[in-house]
C-alpha cells in the first residue's frame, strides 16, 4: 500500500483485457475515483508511412489499406482520391458510387463492431454477442461483393476493382432489411435498458466547447453537438450525388455516443439503398499514369471513427516522396484523458471505448527533443546493435 500522499496508480496496458491493442494508460485513483490520467502510445508503430516511400504508387495502395483492419477501405479511398487528384485523373462516376457503397457497408460493420466492444466493456455480453452475430451479415455481403471479409481491396488507382450485379444488389438489399430490423432493436436497448443506462447516461460528458477545443472528430464530436462530417462538409467520392444527413446529439455523454452511432447506421442503410437504386452506368476505371507529376495534395475522408486525413507529395517519379496519415484516433485520444478525471475506475474502459480507439492506426514515430531542442536520432545500425545487446 502506498504511503500517505503517494498516488495509487492503476496501469491499464500495454497488455490488458480491456485493450484489444497495446496502449498504456496510467490512472491514479483515490479509492475508486480517478484523479489523473496519462497515456503512452507507440507500441505498435509499424513504419507504414516510411514503407510507402520504398514502393511504387500501386504497391503503396495495398500497404496503406492495411493501416486499419476495420476501416481499410476508407484508407484506400483517401489515398486513391489524393493520388488521382495529383495525376489530374478522375475516376468514373460508377467507380465513385461503388467506392461510397463499400465505404458505407464498411461503416456498418465498424459501428456494429464498436457497439459490441463497448457493450462488452460495460459487462453487457449479451449485446456484444448479438451485435457481432449480426455483423456477420454485413461481413458476408462484403465478402460476396469484393471477395474479402476485411481488407477488401475494392479500390484501384483510377477506379474500383469490382462491379456490382443484380444478384449482389438483391443480397445487399435483403441483408439491409435484416440489419435495419436489428438496429431498431439495438437503438431500443441502448436508450431504454435501465441497467445499461446506469453505465452510460451522464458518464463521460463532453460539452460542445470542450469538444471543439480538443479538436475531436467523428461520431465522438457529433455526440457533443459538433456538426462535423467530411461526407457533408466536403463531399468526396459520390457523396455529392447521394447526400448524407448529419446525425448529431447534444448530451455529449456515453449514451449520446451510442445513439449517434446507431442512428448513423440508419442513415447508412438509406444511403446504400439510394446508391443501389441510382447507380450510374459506365466504366469502372480510367487509365492512370505510372509516374505521377510533381505536386502535393491533401485528401480527407470520413472514416467510421471520424475524419481521416492524408497528405501526399509526389516528386514526379513512380514513388511517393511522402505520405502522411492522420487517423481519427489521435485527435480523439486527448478527450479520454480529459474526461477520465473525476470518474470511477469502472467507467474508464467505457470512456476509452467511447471514442472507438484504434491504436495501431494512430501510432507514429515521436521525436523527443531535450531542453536545448536537440533531438537524437538512431540510425539503423544503432538500432540493430541495441537489439542484439538487449536480447543477447
Amino acid at each position, binding site marked *: *500500500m502506498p504511503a500517505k500522499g503517494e498516488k*495509487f*496508480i*492503476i*496501469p491499464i496496458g500495454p497488455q*490488458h*483485457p*480491456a485493450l484489444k491493442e497495446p496502449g498504456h494508460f496510467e490512472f491514479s*485513483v483515490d479509492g*475508486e475515483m480517478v484523479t489523473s490520467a496519462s497515456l503512452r502510445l507507440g507500441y505498435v508503430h509499424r513504419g507504414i508511412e516510411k514503407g510507402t516511400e520504398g514502393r511504387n504508387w500501386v504497391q503503396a495502395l495495398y500497404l496503406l489499406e492495411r493501416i486499419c483492419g476495420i476501416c481499410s477501405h476508407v484508407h484506400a479511398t483517401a489515398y486513391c482520391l489524393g493520388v488521382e487528384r495529383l495525376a489530374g485523373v478522375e475516376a468514373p462516376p460508377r467507380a465513385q458510387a461503388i467506392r461510397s457503397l463499400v465505404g458505407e457497408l464498411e461503416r456498418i460493420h465498424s459501428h456494429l463492431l464498436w457497439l459490441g466492444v463497448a*457493450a*462488452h*466493456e*460495460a*459487462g*453487457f*455480453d*449479451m449485446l*456484444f*454477442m*448479438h451485435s457481432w*452475430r449480426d455483423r456477420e451479415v454485413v461481413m458476408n455481403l462484403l465478402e460476396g461483393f469484393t471477395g474479402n471479409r476485411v481488407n477488401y481491396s475494392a479500390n484501384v488507382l483510377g477506379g474500383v476493382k469490382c462491379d456490382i450485379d443484380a444478384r449482389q444488389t438483391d443480397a445487399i438489399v435483403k441483408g439491409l432489411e435484416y440489419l435495419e430490423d436489428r438496429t431498431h432493436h439495438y437503438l431500443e436497448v441502448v436508450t431504454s*435498458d435501465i*441497467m*445499461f443506462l*446506469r*453505465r452510460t447516461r451522464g458518464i463521460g460528458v463532453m460539452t460542445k466547447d470542450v469538444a471543439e477545443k480538443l479538436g475531436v472528430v467523428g461520431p465522438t464530436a457529433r455526440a457533443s453537438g459538433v456538426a462535423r462530417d467530411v461526407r457533408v462538409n466536403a463531399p468526396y467520392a459520390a457523396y455529392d450525388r447521394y447526400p448524407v444527413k448529419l446525425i448529431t446529439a447534444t448530451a455529449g455523454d456515453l449514451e449520446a455516443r451510442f445513439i449517434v452511432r446507431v442512428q448513423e447506421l440508419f442513415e447508412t442503410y438509406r444511403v446504400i439503398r439510394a446508391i443501389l437504386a441510382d447507380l450510374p452506368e459506365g466504366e469502372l476505371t480510367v487509365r492512370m499514369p505510372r509516374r505521377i507529376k510533381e505536386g502535393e495534395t491533401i485528401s480527407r475522408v470520413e472514416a467510421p471513427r471520424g475524419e481521416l486525413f492524408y497528405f501526399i507529395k509526389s516528386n514526379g517519379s513512380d514513388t511517393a516522396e511522402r505520405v502522411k496519415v492522420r487517423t481519427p484516433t489521435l485527435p480523439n485520444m486527448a478527450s479520454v484523458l480529459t474526461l477520465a478525471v473525476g470518474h*470511477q*475506475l*469502472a*467507467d*474508464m*474502459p467505457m470512456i476509452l471505448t467511447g471514442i472507438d480507439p484504434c491504436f495501431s492506426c494512430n501510432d507514429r514515430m515521436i521525436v523527443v527533443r531535450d531542453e536545448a531542442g536537440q533531438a537524437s536520432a538512431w540510425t539503423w545500425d544503432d538500432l540493430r546493435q541495441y537489439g542484439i545487446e538487449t536480447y543477447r
Partner: protein
Amino acid sequence: MSAVIALVIFPGGVCILLAGMLYEWFDRKLVARFQDRIGPRWFQPLADTVKLLAKEEVVPDGVNGQLFFVLPVIALAGAMTAALYVPVFGLAPSFSFSGDLIATIYMLSLLTLCMGLAGANTLNRFSLLGATRTLTQLFSYEAPFLLALLGPAIVAGSWRISAIADYAADHWLILTQPIGFAVALIGLMGKLELPPFDAPEAETEIVAGALTEYSGRGLALFHLGKGVELVVGLTLVAAFYLGGVANPLAFFVKTLVILLGLAGLQALFTRLRIEQTVGLWWRYGALLVLVQFLALIVWEGWVA
C-alpha cells in the same frame, strides 16, 4: 465408516466436486445459448481443473507464501463442509445440529473471505482493488442474504437445516415469502460474483480481481470452491423456498430450474459498478427483506 464415506465420497467429497463442475458447465452452457453462442462441452470444467492442477503454481514476489498456499484450501474446505449440512442430491443432510444454518452460511462466506485475503496478500494492484471490491460486496449482500434464509427458519420454528427443509417440503414458501426468495436468489449471484455482480472480477477493469496472481493449483481450488458453493446455494434456496428437495429427482429438477433463471439474469444485465451494487443492496434488498422479516416475526408471535 458411513461418516467417512459421507465426507470423502458421497454425498460430500468427490461427488460434490463433480456436481459443482456439472452445475458450472450447465450455467456456462445456458449463458452461452442465451447469447447465441455454442458454449463449452460438458466436460470442459473438469478438463480446466485437470489442466490447472497439472500446471506450475507461480508464487509471486512479496506475498506471504504460507497464506498464499493455504487460502485456496480453506476456501474449498469451507464450501465442501457447508455441503455436508444441506440436503444435496435430495438426501437428508449427512450431519446436523441445532443452529447449523448459521454455521453453513458462515462456511459459505469463508470462500469470499479467503478470496479477499488472497487478493490483499499480493502486491498486485489489480488484486488489491479486486480484494477491496470483493469485501465491499460481501458486506452489501451478506446481511440481506442471511435474513432471506432466516425467514423460512422463523416460520419453521427451528434453525436446523433438516428441520426447516422438512417443514418447507409441505409449504411452498415462495408463495408466502416471495421477497425472501428473490433476495436469496440475487444474494447467491452476489456471493458467486456472477454478472451483474461481477465488479470484483471485472476483466475489462481489473483483469481477474483478487485472483489475478493465482495460477495452477490455487486457481483450480478457488474455482472448484465456487462450483461447490453454487450447488450448496441452489440446494438451500430450493429446499427452503421451492417445496423442498425430498428426492434426487426433485433436487435436480428444482435446482436446475433455479439455475436456468440465474443464467437468464446473468445474460440480461449489464455489470453494476461496485457502488451501484452496494446501493442496490442497502437501499432496496436489505430494506425489503427486513420488512418481510419483521412481518414474519409479528405474524409468528401474535397471530399464529
